[in-house]
Structure formats: C-alpha cells, structure tokens
C-alpha cells in the first residue's frame, strides 16, 4: 500500500499518522505540502489532525479551499481511498467528501481522553479488521467533534450502513452518557456512499503500540494494508 499524508501548516498529527502508516506498511508515506496541486500515485490519502490554518474560522473551512484539497477531491472521485482523522474529518466534511458538519463539543470544552467506540460497519477497507459490533478504545482530542447532519441525512447514513463508529458508554451502549461531544446519534465516524472515504474524530494512530496504553487502532491500519496491497 502506498500512502500520502497531507500536511497543512497547522497540522500536528501528520507525523503520528505517518509513523502509524509506516509501522503498518513498512514504508514511510509521502508527505504532501498543502500548496501542491499534484499527488504521487497512491492507494490512500490521509488527512491528519491538527489546526490546518489555525482554524480561527470554522475548523477545516479554509483547508477545504486549499490547492491540495482540490486534487484530493479529484482523486477521491476516482476511488482512491481517503482517510480524515480529527481535523482531517472536519476538512473532509468542509470539502463535501462526507456529509454533515462537526460543531463545537456540546460541553463547549476541548476533550482529550480515551473513549469507548462500537464498530458499526466492518465492510470497508478501513474497518474490515474489526468484528461487527466490536467494542474498542481509542483516544480523542478535539474541541469541535459534535457531529451534525439533518435527520434525512442521518437516516440515510444509518440505512446505508455508513456509520462506521459510534461513541458508547462503559456498558458498550450508545447512550447520552457515552456521547462525549453531543454528536448526533453518537456518531464518531462515517463513510461516503462508496465506502472509499472515511472520516472519524478518534485518533487510531494513538493506539497502535502497547506504550500508547492500548492497541485497538492496529486492526484499522491492518485493514487498509490488507485491502490495498
């Protein structure tokens, strides 16, 4: 699997994602600067966490207008797999590769902690390594992770099985108690129609080795390598 990681000037999880991808594939991904208009031939484009251009405007709004994102949108249309983590998820919604928006957390505060997730869809190249309904723990760190879409869109996402991950409580249930940021229907990550684009707020790259305190992110990267190699 060949991968590229997009680097905006305010990205700060670009290295972490690159390290996790290299662990999984054995080769370092290409790092692509935000001003680039061409991408190398790759199987996966990853948009990392951070604060793209400072995000003083809506998170991801300016990044969605950047030269490199126009190219990413073109590649996505051709079926190249695109992953957005945290700020990357925000960028993908702003770029309309995924529906909905990420609003300020319902608690209005930044939240950094491991969260319980339930894997809802295991039929994508990102999630095949998990078991359906598997409960995993992955860290989040965000201020704007409150997923919002209109009811029709949410129903469509559910109906088409495009909800990839949901926040759950200590008993593994998607309750209000387990919903760390107020997301509609506890949604933590979604897929596009063709299941080739995934955006999620939790950081799987922060759960790939025992020293991270958990390795529940490993199947995520393994899925990608198995699907795209």
């Amino acid at each position, binding site marked *: 699997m060949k991968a590229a990681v997009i680097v905006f000037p305010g990205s*700060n999880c670009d290295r972490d994602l690159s390290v996790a991808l290299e662990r999984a594939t054995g080769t370092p991904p290409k790092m692509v600067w935000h001003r680039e208009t061409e991408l190398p031939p790759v199987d996966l484009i990853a948009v990392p966490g951070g604060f793209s251009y400072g995000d003083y405007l809506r998170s991801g709004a300016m990044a969605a207008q950047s030269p490199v994102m126009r190219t990413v949108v073109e590649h996505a249309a051709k079926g190249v797999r695109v992953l957005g983590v945290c700020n990357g998820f925000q960028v993908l919604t702003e770029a309309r590769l995924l529906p909905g928006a990420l609003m300020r957390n319902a608690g209005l505060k*930044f939240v*950094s902690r491991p969260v319980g997730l339930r894997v809802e869809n295991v039929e994508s190249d990102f999630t095949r390594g998990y078991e359906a309904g598997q409960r995993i723990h992955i*860290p989040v760190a965000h201020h704007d992770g409150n997923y919002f879409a209109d009811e029709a869109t949410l129903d469509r996402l559910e109906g088409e099985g495009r909800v990839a991950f949901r926040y759950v409580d200590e008993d593994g249930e998607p309750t209000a108690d387990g919903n760390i940021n107020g997301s509609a229907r506890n949604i933590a990550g979604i897929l596009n129609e063709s299941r080739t684009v995934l955006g999620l707020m939790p950081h799987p790259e922060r759960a790939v080795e025992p020293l*991270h305190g958990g390795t529940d992110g490993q199947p995520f990267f393994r899925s990608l390598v198995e699907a795209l190699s």
Partner: protein
Amino acid sequence: MSPRNEPAVTAELAAEHGLSDEEYALMLRLVGRAPTFTELGIFSVMWSEHCSYKSSKVWLKTLPTTGPRVICGPGENAGVVDIGDGLAAVFKMESHNHPSFIEPYQGAATGVGGILRDVFTMGARPVANMNALRFGAPDHPKTKHLVSGVVAGIGGYGNCVGVPTVGGETNFHPAYNGNILVNAMTVGIARADRIFYSAAAGIGNPVVYVGSKTGRDGIHGATMASAEFSEDAEEKRPTVQVGDPFTEKLLIEACMELMATDAIVAIQDMGAAGLTSSSVEMAGKGGLGIELELDRVPQRETGMTPYEIMLSESQERMLMILKPGREAEARAIFEKWELDFAVIGRLTDSGRLVLKMHGETYCDIEIAPLVEASPVYERPWEPTPARAELEPALGALPARPVAELLKTLVACPDLASKRWIWEQYDGQVGADTIYRSGQADAGVVRVHGTNKALAITTDCTPRYCVADPVRGGAQAVAEAWRNLTATGALPLAVTDNMNFGNPQKPRIMGQFVGAIQGMAEACRALDFPVVSGNVSLYNETEGQAILPTPAIGGLGLLDDGAGAVPLAFQAAGHAVLLLGATDGHLGQSLYLREILGREDGPPPPVDLAVERRNGDLVRGLIRDGLVAACHDVSDGGLLVALAEMAMAARMGAELPGLAGADAGQLFGEDQGRYVIACPADAAAEIARRAGEAGVPCSSLGTTGGTALTGFGHGAISVDELRRANEGWLPALMAGELAPVV
C-alpha cells in the same frame, strides 16, 4: 540628542516608569547627557525586577547549577542536560502570573507560548508541556472564572501548537485570591551538538527579525510584572499580550528548518521587554554593539514610535544573527511558512545600542552598563519564626469514621481529581506519551525514535513553605525527585519558578532567602542541579502576599520507557508494601487543615540522606522489574496514597498492615516514603533488598476487591471514594458549590 515628538525625560517621568531616584541618577550618569524618551523606556524595562533579577540575583547564585549531565545552566533561554546517545533535553519553567489574573485566557496562553519559544530558540523541538497553577479560595467570586479562563488558555495554545500537556499540579488557597500563579514548563529535545545560544558574534553580521508583526500590545508588561497590584488591576488589561498559537507552530517549524542548516550565529526569542531585551542581551553577551533601523521592523499598526516598537511585547517573534550572505536562504524558509522576515540592522564594534527611525537617532547608549551596571540589591531579610510543635494528642483518631475522613480528604480542593482540567489538554499528540496526568507520579514521554523516555514533574507545597521556608524549599525539591523516582526515572536536573510577594518587605525577602537555602541544600544532596528558572516577585494585592511558592520542575531519564511504572494497582493479589519510616507528623498536613480546621505546626522534616537512600532503592527495584505500581506518599499521607492507587485502578486492597494505626500514621505527611505494589513472589526479594539498604519496609496487605478494608474501619468503597474525588471540581465549575459573597 533630542528627537522630535518625544516627551522630555524628567525625574517624574522616570518614576512613572518604575525607576527609583537612585536608579534614575545612575541612568543619567551612564548616559552622560539628557536621555531620550526611548532610552528611558529601555532602561526602565532592562532594570525592571522581571528582566534584571535585581532583588534575587545574589541569592540565585547560591544554587548548585553544575553536574556531569549539565550542558548549559542558567543564563540562557533554557537549561540543557545530556540524555545520552548524542541527545539533550532542554527545559525551563516560567510564570505568567500577573497577566493571567487580569486576562486569564490570553495571559495563560501567552505564558505557554513564551516558554515554548524559550525552548525551541535553543534548537530543541518541544515534546511536552507541564504547568503549576495556584488559585484563590474555591468559593472566592473570581476563582471559577480564573480557573476556566486559564485552563482554556493553556489548552487553546498547547493543543494547537501540537505539544502534549502531560502533567501539572493545581492548588487552591485564599492567599492567591488576588494573585493567582500560572507557571508553565516546556521540555524539548535537541541534538547535543546542535544547541543554539544567544551570544551575538561577527561584526557586520545581519540582525534578522522573524515571526509576527509588532503591535502596541504588551507595552510595559515586564514593568507590570515588577510591581504590586492594586484594586484597579483590571485597568492594566491593555498590557496583556494576545497569543496566536498557529503562528507559533509555523515559527517552530520554520526555525527547526533553518536550524538544520548552519546559517544561524545566534538566536533569541522576543519575550518580556521584546526587541529591547533580545537585542541588548544578544549584543551584550557577545560584547558587541548593535544598530537597528526601526523603520524596517514589520509593524501591525501605523504610526508606531521607536519607544513603542522597542517596548512592545507582541508574541511569536524571534531575533537572529545570521552568517553574512545567508539571508536569502533563510528568507525563503520563512516565506514558505508565510512568516515575516526582515533584516533590521547589523552588529557593530561600538558596544553601543543605536536605534534609528525616519533618519533620526532615538537611542545611542552603551550596552554593557545596561546589563552589567544594572542595580543589584541585597534586600534586608528576616528569618521566618519557627512554628510551635503540635500537641501530641492530635495523633489520636477522632470520633468520625475513618471512611468519612478519607472521603473528605480525597474530595478536598488540593486532593480532588483535576481531570476537569487536564482533559482539556491534548495529552497525547506526538504519540509518544507513556503516562499523562493521573496515571503516574510524573508525566512520562518517550524520546521520539528511541526507547528512552523523560519523566517530568512540577512540585511545591506552599503551606509548608509559609510555615518554614527552608524546609519547604527542600521539600519541594525532594518531592520532585521522589515523583520522578516513583516512575523509575533517574532525576537529572531542575528548573525553578520562584513566586513570592514584595521583596522590599524583610519578611517576604526572608521567605525567598529561606526557600533558596532549602532548595540549594536539597539539590546538592540529591545531585539535582538547577539549570534554568524564573523569578516572579511582587505577587501582592493591597499588601496581601501569596504563600511563598518556589515551584520546582523536575526532569528525569528512563533508559527504557517501557519500564516506567504507573501509580494504579495493576492486578489483584499483588502485595502492597510501604518503604520508608512513618512517624505520624501532622504539622501543616492536609488532615490538620481539612479535618481539624487548623493550619499550624511545623511542616514535616526532610532528611535528605534518607530521601536519597530510599529513592535509590526504589529506582533499583523498578529497574529490575520487581515493581508493578509505585506512588510516593505526600499530601494527605499514607491512607490517601493508597486510596489514589486504588481509585486509579478501580480496585481495592485488604490492608491488615494498617490495623491499629492512629491519625498520625494514616494521614501524617512524613517524607521519603513510597507505596509499591508487586507480584506476591517479589515481596520477599524487595524486603530483603530494603533490609540490606537499611530502608524500613512494611507489608500493608494485598490488592483486590472493591474496597479498602481489613484494618478495622469497615470496607471503604473505592467507587464511593472515586465519586467524591472526581466530583468536586466539576461541581465547583458547574456552580454547584455556592460562592460566598
């Protein structure tokens, strides 16, 4: 020399700038003619307490600052220690107390920004942030607003820049009602042979300004930080700077990129007193002169005067001396990161600071006296009177059940969980965090690309310091050393942040002197040199001083980060042992304050030889893989330490070893103690090694179950303790603890 449009300098104007009559007279003598307004501004900030350390210098010199690991001690932007394999750790702690009280979000945010710059200025990539916070009484009407603003500011800056905040401490006490303390610490990693210093060199070399544009924000910040507050403190809001963490992130990346070349001769960030202190200090250290064309300084506002440009404390700016001919290469890097880059002057052989604007000269003064002839005061001081010993009867347990005493303690402001605070900080960005707040006695961060890890802690017990500054100073150092040791790390060095009241009062100066004496003694005994630091004086409002707070930032090294141990019990059936002796010292303990409502007695004695012996044993046990969990015994005493290990694990323990213990034994704060949990078959080996080392070792019991039990006080539910411990701060912040108006 009398530039147009500048006010004439008078004794009155000098006094308004905070110069004493003697200092003004000295300045007139040094300048040798009528000084300009710009020159007055420069003298006033360079001679402010904040920049000149005039009250503290003679005492700071008594701290030990050298050691086999020390690459660079105090005097540079940050301290540097060798961590092996060609790598160095660069670190420092700094206060942003006054600004954070006036404007908590920006004050705290720019505090983080400033300390980050101090570290990456030296060529180190920042890898971890810490903070030490002190707020007023929880029920003071301002406390909630200040906590909320400071925490959001620290998070807002650190999270965006992408440096994990891995630990810290937070206390509440009415003595901080009018002067909160916000001390921020950054640790960075650099190649040991690629450390960047600030001494200018090379006559004719270009002086380069990079980063954000200069505005009118923060003018006289350093002077504000050098005076007491009065009731009108909030009118000083315009002197607080505004931070832009996105620009800081760009500045880090651009500087790292340029530092990978050999174009830089010297570099310094523009912190307190901005362009003034950076240019004067760089030229001063190099024994050179400097000439600046202020028209060339990138400006955010129109019509700025030389005075304003030189005194602005706009954030995210750096000053560099480049090798000749390397300007284009450097400019290209900064333009890539969309940052301002301007050659604003050159180094000269005159030894003078010359400032020109619009073809006129606004300043032409000798640099050496500005730095070297700055006033140094040996302020009169009084030793702090010793506190009377407590009556021995206090050691008996009161009628209230122990379960209730423990629940009250773990929910008291100083011991309650600070999760509400640290979950607002990204603790894991960088993907190298092994332990963050709440998981171990120190934050533990892997050195990227290696197996090594750094352990980092901030410690101080101000209630000890106010009762006995010497003992309190020593205890702060010892506790930092112990917290590092409890993770398995070898303590390497210290940064200090000395927060005190008005040094012109002999009583306050006595607190400062005492704390330094205690710290110096402890640092020597523990081979724990001070390599950087910061002094914040005049923390007084309406004559009310804060508790003396010499905050210690400690750094330790683990050769293998995977061997670091957490504080939570790891498995049921583990043996629980206490290492170190318990005398039941209750003076200045939290038990005394929270349960008996008294803040008196002497703080616990600190026996540095015992401290060292016990810590060296524990570190060896951890290194040899015998220990599963370790926690030092500090605030709240032994039973609180056990409760903290249990709450973190959500697992109880059967503790027959505590049967018959009185209040002093359960809650006394005797120093030099550690609780460890280990597999049952390791306990005998640990006891044997403790015996050999002469360290008291007692078996307390066994982990397991859901309660602390088996010592004659029923079953104390860990879940209930947790609820009390986790509930206090969220309730305060939700307004559920009604403020007393």
